[in-house]
Each structure stands twice: as C-alpha cells, then as structure tokens.
C-alpha cells in the first residue's frame, strides 16, 4: 500500500501504476481538486496542513477496514500539503481489484471515511477573506 504526503504536484499516473496488476480487472480512482468557488465565494488558494503521524495511522486503519469489506488488491493514497491553487489536486485515492464492484465500492468507502477521519486542515483564501474550513462538503 502506498501512503504519501507531498508538497509537489500529485502524479496521478504514478499512483495508478502503483495499484495496477495483471490479476486486477478493475482500477478505480478519485481526485479531489481545488474548486474556484465555495459557498458563493471566489477561491484564490488553499493552504493544506496535515498531522502526518496520525494521518498515516488513520489511513492504514481505513484501508484495513476496506480490505475486510471488499476484495481489494492494492491501494494508493497521495495527499498534497502546502499551498494549492485552483485546479490543483489535493488528494488522490486509487484502488485495484479483480472485479469492478470491489474496486468501486472500496473506493467510495475509502473516500467517505477519509473525509471524516483524516487529520487534514484547509485554510481557504477567498475574495471574502481567509478561513479554516470545518467539517462539511468540500468536494
């Protein structure tokens, strides 16, 4: 399993290559990208902050849960940190499996739990000012 934090642009191809395997008929991928608008305000950029040690542990736990519920072959989670511009990718999650339902449902589970549990903070700079984003539908 690949868990990676990076301040560089996320290489989606690398994450996909990591999970692909001749035993896998299905690869699913989710990208969370920076939108140009949030709750009616124009987004300028976002500062991402992560509690690394807890992030890694929590992602490992979520992955273990997904592995129990679905037949997942491999996973890759790459999280961007630092300053992100509109259009930049903040998170990529890839899942591979022999069959498509495991890959798709495993991916959905990973994302939903990740959004709830991953210790990631975002400071949003908009035309209406700066603020730390709380729980809620960001992506």
């Amino acid at each position, binding site marked *: 399993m690949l868990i990676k934090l990076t301040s560089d642009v996320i290489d989606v191809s690398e994450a996909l290559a990591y999970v692909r395997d001749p035993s896998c008929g299905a690869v699913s991928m989710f990208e969370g990208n920076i939108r140009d608008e949030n709750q009616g305000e124009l987004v300028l950029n976002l500062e991402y902050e992560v509690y690394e040690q*807890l992030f890694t542990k929590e992602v490992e736990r979520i992955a273990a849960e997904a592995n129990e519920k679905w037949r997942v072959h491999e996973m890759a989670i790459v999280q961007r940190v630092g300053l992100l511009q509109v259009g930049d990718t903040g998170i990529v999650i890839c899942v591979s499996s022999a069959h498509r339902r495991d890959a798709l449902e495993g991916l959905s589970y990973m994302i939903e739990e*990740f959004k709830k549990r*991953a210790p990631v903070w975002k400071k949003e700079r908009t035309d209406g000012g700066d603020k730390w984003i*709380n729980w809620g539908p*960001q992506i």
Partner: protein
Amino acid sequence: MKIRVLYFAAIREQMGQAEATIEVAPGETPSSMAKQLMGSDATLLFAVNDELVAKDYALADGDQLAFIPPMAGG
C-alpha cells in the same frame, strides 16, 4: 512532568507556534490543558502519542499531546 504539545491549523495560529514542551503538574488531562492553554476545550479532539484519546485521558510524563481542531477532510 513534561508534556510535548502539538498545535495544528487554527490552534497553531492562536498559539503562535506548532509545538512546545510544557512542564505540567500530575493529574492534567487533554481537556484541562486545552482550557488552560486555549481557554476552552470545545470542538477539539486530542491525540496522545499519535492516537486519538478521550478528553479526560490521564497524561503521563513524556507524552506527546496533539490538539486537533475541526478537520476539513482530505
């Protein structure tokens, strides 16, 4: 006893630093330290040695305590 504290996001900005080592009396908990340092423990979660703990967790000498404000999700 000595506690290593980690501050993140809004808490980090409020405290003006990302981490510190603090001398505290025995019997302190994440909740009591939050009240003392930040004025409130509302909306916070706590991790000791990189695992989430209850707010009344009994801190021990050498523990690393992280104050976790509301998260945005990945």
